[in-house]
């Protein structure tokens, strides 16, 4: 009477046993639900885009060997801050995600989470040939080959590895595209979320991400 049955683990409100690893289906820990598809027409889009283009905030996250090229961008030799580009370690305040080279399947999971946590509008810059067609890791068992199938890429910077100047040129292209209202990868992503999800789940075997990583 009043004694817990032996071997029975108490459950959280969501039906998950206490003490087990948090799982994506645990609605007390993860927000469920998907974003609504975005529409293109925005009022005064021209002004908004001008502001957005002049103040890019790069997510400080490096994946492949290309991330070694990101450091010099802040130094006095290349100085990306003169274009209003700053770096930040939190996805909540970032607007640009640079995939700097090969992306292993294990990292892809983290990248998806980071990307989905960034507020709209957000852009992806793919750096190096590894992101375009696999590069020299074209036959690797653990990296993805064509990044565009997993995340919507706005600007590609090719080379192996591209110099910081090339990356700055890529940023300039991105800024021009934003001003013209053409950098709409994030809208693609939300409108075709099912397609991207299917591709992501195909390579990530131990899929335990929530419906959408808010």
């Amino acid at each position, binding site marked *: 009477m009043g004694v817990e049955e032996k071997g029975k683990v108490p459950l959280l409100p969501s039906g998950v046993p206490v003490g087990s690893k948090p799982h994506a289906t645990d609605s007390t820990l993860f927000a469920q639900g998907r974003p609504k598809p975005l529409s293109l027409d925005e009022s005064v889009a021209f002004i908004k885009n001008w502001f957005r283009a002049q103040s890019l905030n790069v997510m400080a996250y490096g994946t492949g060997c290309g991330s070694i090229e990101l450091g010099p961008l802040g130094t*006095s030799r290349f100085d990306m801050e003169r274009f209003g580009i700053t770096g930040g370690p939190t996805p909540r*305040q970032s607007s640009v995600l640079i995939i700097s080279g090969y992306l292993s399947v294990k990292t892809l999971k983290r990248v998806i989470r980071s990307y989905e946590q960034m507020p709209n509008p957000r852009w992806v810059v793919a750096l190096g040939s590894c992101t375009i067609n696999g590069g020299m890791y074209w036959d690797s068992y653990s990296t993805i080959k064509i990044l565009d199938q997993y995340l919507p890429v706005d600007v590609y910077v090719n080379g192996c590895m591209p110099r910081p100047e090339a990356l700055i040129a890529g940023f300039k292209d991105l800024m021009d595209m934003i001003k013209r209202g053409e950098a709409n990868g994030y809208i693609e992503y939300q409108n075709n979320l099912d397609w991207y999800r299917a591709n992501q789940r195909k390579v990530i075997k131990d899929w335990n991400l929530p419906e959408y990583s808010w």
Partner: protein
Amino acid sequence: MELLLQILWSSIGVLIAVAYGLLTGGIVRKLFARIQGRVGPPVYQGFIDLGKNFFVRDNISHGPMFYFGPALRTAGGVGIFLFIPAIVGWAPGENFSFAGDLLLVMYFMFFGSLGMALGGSAGGHPHTPIGAGRGLSQMTAFEVPFILAVIALVADTGSFSVHDLTLAQAGGFLEWNLLTHPFAAAAAFIAMLGMNGYAPFNVVGAPNEIPVGPMTEYQGGFIATLGTGRAIFAIAKMILFMDLFLGGATSILEAFIKVFVIYMWSVAVAAVFPRYRVDQSMRFFLGWPALIGVVAVLLALF
């Protein structure tokens, strides 16, 4: 009617202070860049960042407290600005100065950081409580020399009103508290280094340690509000120092110049010093600056 007019003038004053704060922030970024041999962002970058942050969608919330944080922070800055005279002897610039405003203003200085601690913690990111805890502990440390300096001035002048303290320095720069109360001024200006949060006292959002600190979960409109709050907070603090130590200002131009010069003091220090750890920073403020403050109080009393 007079009150309504004053509200109108003060609102315009708040707008000017925000704009000037953003501009000063841009100039400081440019200065740091030039010191490091870079070109640096344009001086109006602060305005662009503000605009961009307003045009970012806020896609998360962490409950009501999350919204209060930036609001309280901004309210702290606006509060300081509204209760001290920006321009002495000119009705529109006097704001809502009254007999005990100095006490109220010192309370408002705590206000913003407390708001940040409450609001940021609602976000649940581990960097938030660390940053807020660091900020509050450093604040308790630098308040000691600052309050000792203020006590010295108040004991000498016999008034808790910023307006009276400013008027007591009328009549040329030789009457400024900066020269007549050198110990109080020294203690207060060292405390200001901590208040402004530039290196060596940038322990709250310490880069490479807990980058972004309490603001980690904030985004878009929240960041824009925080940026506005920071801009006006910086300017309001400088106005307080101008009123207390540099004889206040009698014209807008004078106020602009003096505020800028005082601001450059902490920038000059920040440009050459690396960051303290939080315990070092606290020990620093409770050491020599506090002692200088005690000397100032003793000199004022005897």
